[in-house]
């Protein structure tokens, strides 16, 4: 019960004039403070919907979501949500895009704005500070979107396939970077991904969802040897392959 976030029998259906689309049924799980949780599942199974529910953008059709034992609407925890697409606004410069969250939350103090410049440097975007996002590559845009989320200093990070637009090499380095940051700042994170290796290498636990309407198929604890906890090293851990195969099996077993 000491979980930071807990979902109890949460279901969600989309309603439209053409009918009802059940997206999630009876989802229950808890996330302890400081955990890195990964969620994998087939396309369209309701992963993005799940994050929108946690972020409070959608109300659950049934069940409830609590943070530190309080209802979602009564809590003051900062949730950072990085959407599947970067959605950088093309009429703003990169810098002004990154300041968007601070502006909206009226936290655009000099210290916070200085943090943007720091992060721009750290992510190799300093040269594009005053460029329009249209001149950024896919990977740069993704990193910019991540900075936009991080400058708000969220306690809980929701990441919806944050690395999907990156090429393989960048993907591994960026995911390693992000993992280090999240660990260093002791943040709690929920990562959605299609990539099983990514899920195993980054997270403490992996939740496997079934096809739509999504239900929890399995929850798998990832326990690699402590020396191999960074995403890059994790890939050479002897148990990595076993976890990979186990999740692969969970994902494919029920498809026939």
């Amino acid at each position, binding site marked *: 019960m000491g979980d930071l976030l807990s979902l109890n029998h949460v279901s969600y259906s989309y309603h439209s004039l053409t009918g009802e689309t059940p997206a999630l049924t009876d989802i229950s799980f808890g996330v302890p403070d400081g955990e890195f949780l990964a969620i994998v599942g087939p396309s369209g199974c309701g992963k993005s919907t799940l994050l929108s529910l946690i972020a409070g953008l959608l109300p659950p059709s049934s069940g409830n979501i609590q943070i530190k034992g309080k209802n979602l609407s009564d809590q003051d925890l900062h949730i950072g949500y990085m*959407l599947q697409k970067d959605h950088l*606004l093309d009429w703003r410069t990169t810098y002004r895009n990154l300041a968007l969250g601070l502006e*909206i939350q009226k936290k655009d103090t000099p210290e916070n704005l200085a943090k943007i410049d720091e992060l721009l440097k750290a992510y190799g975007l300093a040269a594009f500070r005053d460029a329009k996002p249209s001149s950024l590559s896919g990977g740069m845009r993704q990193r910019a979107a991540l900075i936009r989320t991080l400058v708000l200093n969220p306690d809980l990070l929701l990441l919806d396939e944050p690395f999907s637009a990156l090429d393989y090499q960048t993907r591994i380095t960026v995911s390693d970077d992000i993992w280090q940051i999240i660990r260093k700042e002791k943040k709690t994170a929920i990562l959605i991904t299609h990539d099983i290796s990514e899920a195993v290498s980054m997270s403490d636990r992996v939740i496997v969802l079934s096809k739509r309407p999504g239900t929890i198929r399995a929850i798998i604890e990832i326990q690699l040897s402590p020396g191999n906890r960074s995403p890059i090293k994790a890939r050479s851990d002897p148990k990595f392959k076993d976890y990979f195969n186990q999740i692969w099996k969970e994902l494919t077993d029920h498809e026939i």
Partner: protein
Amino acid sequence: MKYKMLLGMSKEPGISEEQRTFLRDCLAKERFIRICRWLFFLSFLALWEIGARVGFLNPFIFSSPGRILKSAVSMASDGTLFYHLGITLFETFFSFFIVMAFGILAAVLLWWKESLARILEPYLIVLNSLPKTALAPIFIVWLGNNMKTIIVAAVSVAVFGTIITLYTDFISVEEDKIKLIRTLGGTRKDILFKVILPSNIPSIISIMKVNIGLSLVGVIIGEFLAAKAGLGYLIIYGSQVFKLDWVMMSIVILCIAAAGLYQLLSIAERKTER
């Protein structure tokens, strides 16, 4: 514009001979088109003038370039020309600003209250397709034979289309951009000011380009019916007293004014793009 650009490009050092030939060809074509445009214009004027002098066109009815120029010079020297032009331009700008301000405000309101938009939709559509000249006599009765009527008539020509177009543009902003603002903790006000309005600047500018022309149309209609000054008044008055020189001159000046107003907004557009 394009000619100057091509000329500059073809003189740039360090381009290949092939590219230079290509640019020269483009330049020659551009030059040909320009010459033809002027030829068309000048031969039109010449035919008109000669026709009027030879008696092939009755100058009393058709006027002539020479007579137009003469009356323009005489009305310019006693200031009446600038007076009428000034009145028309003032009325046009005034109606234009009202249309834009009211149109944007109304579209924002409809976006804010979707049910209001749904309720008003059929009325807006009917009002938009109604020929606004039909309303002009009512405005005269209600508001009198004065500038108020002219401005209200001009506003009525453009305002309904503006509201409908802007509202449609506002609601077609990508849903996920709105979701982004919400994930950053934004309210509906933030959505309006950070996404809806800025993403629609190009569409607002293109509406402005249409509206400056429509406002001029509305003002002239208004001046036909209820005016003591302005180019529209001059046209009507001139035709009543059979001063066709005045009528033709006013039309020529209207052409120049319309082109000037459009050019003004094109310049404004280029400024915002930068």
